[in-house]
């Protein structure tokens, strides 16, 4: 598939925004369970605003993917069948609930905030499932058609969200900084494990569609001579990444390094040295790495329609 930057930004930023909110709400719940209200209001405000900014940026990016953005309101219609439609509903719902939680917190209505926050957290989790299922439900995109896709969207989002919380708390609420750094490290390692599993799985996939099933002729040697157009078409622009092997490899190892290894090292360094700079650096590095990860996620998927567009002449 051709990785569209609008979708890469949408899914990555949105995932981080949801993760940041979940990180904040998790701490709030833990705090409440201990019978305390020790979260610094400034940290809560920054985390809520950060989460909304990330989700909002993702939402804005998504409009660039649409041919007719002015009709975007129509896209909530088919929630009974379409995961994309469900995402379109869950996304503003999450943002509204997260904003409500932040407002309640700011106004000091801590009990109310916990209730609204629970709803927002559920919406965030549902949104991960919707986003992941958009890709996982297309069964012939074999690289995506796996529960691992949903798990990865969830864990990668949580890891980057926790990194963001670690960075914010290092400045605004040092009491929680250590716990956040530990949680971010754990989530990053867990995400590395599941994303790594997906990489190994996809490397071993055998495509079920072949030139033989595509045109229905049983012969081991089928070679395309013409595709009906010499100058390319929607089919050649949308479904081929057009990147060289070397670029693909660079992106792959780049995201392994920047998405997982480096942030894990930075978070470990933050834990060891208690220097806020390390925690602050982990998030932007990881976000860049996860953008590369999402680019690779799209580029890696082999669409069966490509069998019909193998050569021009």
């Amino acid at each position, binding site marked *: 598939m051709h990785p569209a930057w609008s979708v890469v930004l949408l899914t990555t930023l949105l995932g981080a925004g949801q993760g940041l909110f979940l990180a904040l709400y998790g701490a709030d719940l833990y705090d409440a369970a201990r019978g305390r209200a020790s979260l610094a209001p400034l940290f809560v405000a920054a985390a809520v605003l950060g989460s909304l900014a990330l989700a909002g940026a993702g939402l804005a990016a998504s409009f660039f993917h649409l*041919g007719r953005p002015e009709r975007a309101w129509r896209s909530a219609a088919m929630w009974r069948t379409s995961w994309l439609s469900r995402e379109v509903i869950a996304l503003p719902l999450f943002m509204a609930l997260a904003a409500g939680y932040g407002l309640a917190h700011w106004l000091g209505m801590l009990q109310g905030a916990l209730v609204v926050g629970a709803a927002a957290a559920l919406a965030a989790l549902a949104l991960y499932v919707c986003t992941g299922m958009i890709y996982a439900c297309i069964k012939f995109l074999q690289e995506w058609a796996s529960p691992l896709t949903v798990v990865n969207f969830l864990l990668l989002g949580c890891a980057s969200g926790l990194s963001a919380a670690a960075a914010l708390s290092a400045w605004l609420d040092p009491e929680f900084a250590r716990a956040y750094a530990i949680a971010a490290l754990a989530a990053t390692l867990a995400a590395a494990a599941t994303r790594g599993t997906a990489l190994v799985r996809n490397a071993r996939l055998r495509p079920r569609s072949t030139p033989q099933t595509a045109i229905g002729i049983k012969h081991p040697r089928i070679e395309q001579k013409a595709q009906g157009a010499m100058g390319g078409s929607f089919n050649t622009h949308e479904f081929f990444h057009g990147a060289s092997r070397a670029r693909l490899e660079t992106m792959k190892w780049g995201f392994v390094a920047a998405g997982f290894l480096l942030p894990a090292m930075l978070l470990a360094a933050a834990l060891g040295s208690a220097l806020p700079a390390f925690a602050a650096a982990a998030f932007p590095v990881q976000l860049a790495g996860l953008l590369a990860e999402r680019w690779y996620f799209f580029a890696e998927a082999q669409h*069966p329609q490509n069998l019909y567009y193998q050569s021009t002449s």
Partner: protein
Amino acid sequence: MTQLALVIDLNVCVGCHACVTSCKEWNTQGAAGPLSDLNPYGADPSGTFFNRVQTFEVGEFPNTQTVHFPKSCLHCEDPPCVPVCPTGASYKRAGDGIVLVDYDKCIGCKYCAWACPYGARELDEKQKVMKKCTLCVDRIHDASLPERDRKPACVLACPTSARLFGDIHDPASEVATAIREHGGYALMPEWGTHPANHYLPRRKTEFKVREEDLQRYDNPLKVDGLLPKPATGEPALDDVTSW
């Protein structure tokens, strides 16, 4: 239930692209139009088509076959492109089984194109909505046309009659008969889309001459072989009796 579809005979198609041009001609000015072209006379032309004829070479030289392969939306009976559409712009008509896009509702998100394994949908780069074969829905039901013209433009244009059109659910129809009797098959059956369009396979036309076609099998008077056979150089009956 009716399921309109095309049956394409790969044994007959000569790859002349008449269906491609007549499809584009009809549909660019019809209800589905325009089918925009980008940079048509420039270095990197592209455009929106419902139907394309591709060519494949099967086998190893000298035992090769050139297969011309017209490809358009197959109007799947279980179309994966329809449920994924967030707006409901993509739908399958209950009445005749045609899969259509409502160009006034489509937001151009391209999700349906991702969800079609056959690459049958193309985004119109000018109108920014998804386009695909409509089976000429605006002419096949048009009662003001004579009955014989109520067929998709591609079917009417095909000079070799490689394209048949009809209801594959009606066992007596030309298309259902062709599928049944000439080994009609579906593309990529592995994904359970149940394409309505079918293809008829290439087949070798072998001319079988049996002994009894040359020598009368049933020869009661035993006359065959009694009279001397004229030499090949001698005038035949046609040469002497020319009136």
